[in-house]
């Protein structure tokens, strides 16, 4: 069994919702953004995290990097408690951990400072972390640009001179600057053009092989998740509803939500007849999520128990985890 790099244990994050007004502001509810989420990420693998908007994907990413503080639960990096280091560790300890875990954002237009040159952007991590003597900055910046498929002369340019795909390459170079071994890519291709998406997906795959990176790949685009991930977790309203190896999940989806989600993606081949499962209604508000199984109001096969009992993730063999009622799951055992 491969080595576990990241372990997430029972992660919970709720955001308070306040009523209007300044003086009479009071809490009227809670957004259950992430509710009891657990998973492991092995070294050198890509874990795909999929779900629709508002299901808690990005919040999970922020929690892992401690950009949001979890309400409860644990995040371990190589067995070390991440939250503890960020809350009570020394600056050195915190920076050391930051160097290991980096983030690539969705929108390369918003995540690059328009007034910094590419050189400044890619070398800023050196300045912050101070792990590289200044004499070596130039070589390292050029090496990084080369790794992501940019040229040396690009270093003196500003972000506005680049296309979306090239900007995303700059973001990846910046993330790689501190030699991390774990990168969270939060929808890295969804704001790019179709013909550019493949470039970035392939780049991420190549870098993984060359540098030995581990990814958490977050996306709502299931086709790209299938392309790049080794294992996939499906989230719905703050919970993981299914977790399996990529091919297993896409070829044999079991949770009714996963089935509907996969069937909803149009296949670029008119000969493939689609048996689309169209879900009724919309994702309910995470402020007062439905009782019992959170998917039950939209599910095709609701049993009475689904409205009362919240199903737990059950292993149905070969590490394929599904959170659904037992009667349904017994059909697949």
């Amino acid at each position: 069994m491969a080595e576990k790099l990241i372990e997430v244990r029972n992660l919970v994050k709720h955001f308070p919702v306040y009523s209007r007004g300044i003086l009479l502001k009071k809490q009227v509810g809670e957004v259950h953004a992430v509710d009891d989420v657990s998973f492991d990420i092995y070294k050198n693998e890509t874990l795909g995290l999929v779900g629709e908007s508002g299901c808690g994907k990005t919040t999970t990413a922020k929690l892992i990097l401690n950009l949001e503080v979890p309400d409860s639960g644990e995040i371990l990096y190589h067995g070390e408690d991440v939250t503890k280091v960020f809350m009570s560790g020394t600056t050195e300890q915190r920076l050391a951990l930051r160097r290991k875990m980096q983030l690539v954002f969705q929108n390369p237009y918003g995540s690059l400072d328009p007034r910094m040159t590419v050189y400044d952007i890619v070398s800023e991590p050196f300045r912050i972390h101070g792990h590289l003597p200044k004499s070596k900055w130039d070589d390292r910046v050029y090496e990084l640009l080369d790794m992501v498929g940019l040229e040396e002369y690009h270093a003196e340019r500003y972000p506005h001179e680049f296309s979306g795909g090239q900007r995303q390459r700059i973001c990846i170079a910046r993330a790689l600057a501190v030699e991390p071994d774990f990168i969270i890519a939060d929808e890295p291709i969804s704001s790019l053009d179709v013909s550019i998406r493949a470039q970035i997906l392939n780049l991420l795959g190549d870098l993984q092989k060359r540098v030995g990176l581990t990814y958490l790949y977050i996306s709502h685009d299931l086709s790209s998740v299938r392309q790049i991930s080794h294992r996939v977790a499906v989230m719905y309203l703050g919970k993981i509803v299914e977790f399996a190896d990529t091919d297993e999940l896409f070829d044999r989806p079991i949770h009714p939500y996963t089935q509907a989600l996969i069937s909803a993606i149009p296949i670029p081949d008119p000969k493939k007849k689609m048996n689309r499962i169209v879900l009724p209604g919309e994702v309910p508000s995470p402020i007062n999520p439905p009782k019992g199984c959170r998917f039950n109001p939209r599910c095709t096969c609701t049993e009475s128990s689904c409205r009362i009992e919240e199903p737990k993730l059950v292993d149905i063999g070969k590490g394929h985890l599904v959170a659904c009622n037992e009667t349904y799951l017994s059909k697949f055992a």
Partner: protein
Amino acid sequence: MSENILEVEGLKTHFYTEAGVVLAVDGVSFNVRKGETLGLVGESGSGKTVTALSVLRLVPRPGRIVEGKIRFQGEDLLAKTEEEMRDIRGDKIAIIFQDPTSSLNPVYTVESQLADVINTHQKSSKEGVRGKIAELFQFVEIPEPEARMREYPHQFSGGMKQRVAVARALACEPVLLFADEPTTNLDVTIQAQVLDLMKDLKTKLGMSMVMITHDMGIIADITSRVVVLYAGRVCEIAPTPVLYERLRHPYTEALLAAVPRIDKRKKLAIIPRNIPNLISPPSGCRFHPRCPYAKDVCKERVPELEEVEPGHSVACHEWRNLSLNGVG
């Protein structure tokens, strides 16, 4: 052969910006037949949206239709006055935009926005209009139409807003509907709902539809014919099943090979470089700098659309010498 509802011939729409003239649409020709769903596919900057806006004569400044013919039901749209165009827009030709949040006015109830469209084109009593709107809402499957039509756009979710936009476009039962990436901003399960709805409505109303998208999956799903656009020009026109199986243009091949698929994992082919700048587009065939099969002639001469088989044309110098891979 069914009759053409819309004929676009040699359309050129250019934008006169300070940086130079942007050749956004540069010689695009296609027809829309009665009752068909035509797909306009291409990446951003390929001229899909500008083509639709040109037909509606809604090209924003500094853009201008420079050349070409647009005939709708036999009438020349470019010869119409602005007044006459207003009678056509929303009545005979309607459009659904990509982002329902910005295409609906936030300060009016959705009822008054739909009533606007109906009152502009039809004479009807207040009750008549209200009844019609309720009917439309039922038609696009918005639950509790009577109550919801009094609400404001912000009270609707994304998918529901897009349904309102669809209802507004259908208010006067148009003959031709442009749908400009109507599901790009929606979640996949909601996209499935909206696509199903549009398929349904099209059959019920028997109108023609032009589906603008960059998603080859949506094209395969709902269109019967496809126009592939690249950098303001047409690459290939074919019936949908033919396009996926016997495509003839290198760009179409590249586009299909670069898209990941949900049903299988494959090696993604990369289209090198970026989409060209349309102020100074590449000479000859605009795809040649990114084309793996490019020859010298491609840099020099602009390829004309040639017929490969009935109903299937391609603009490529080399199509006879290439054997390209479609799907499957």
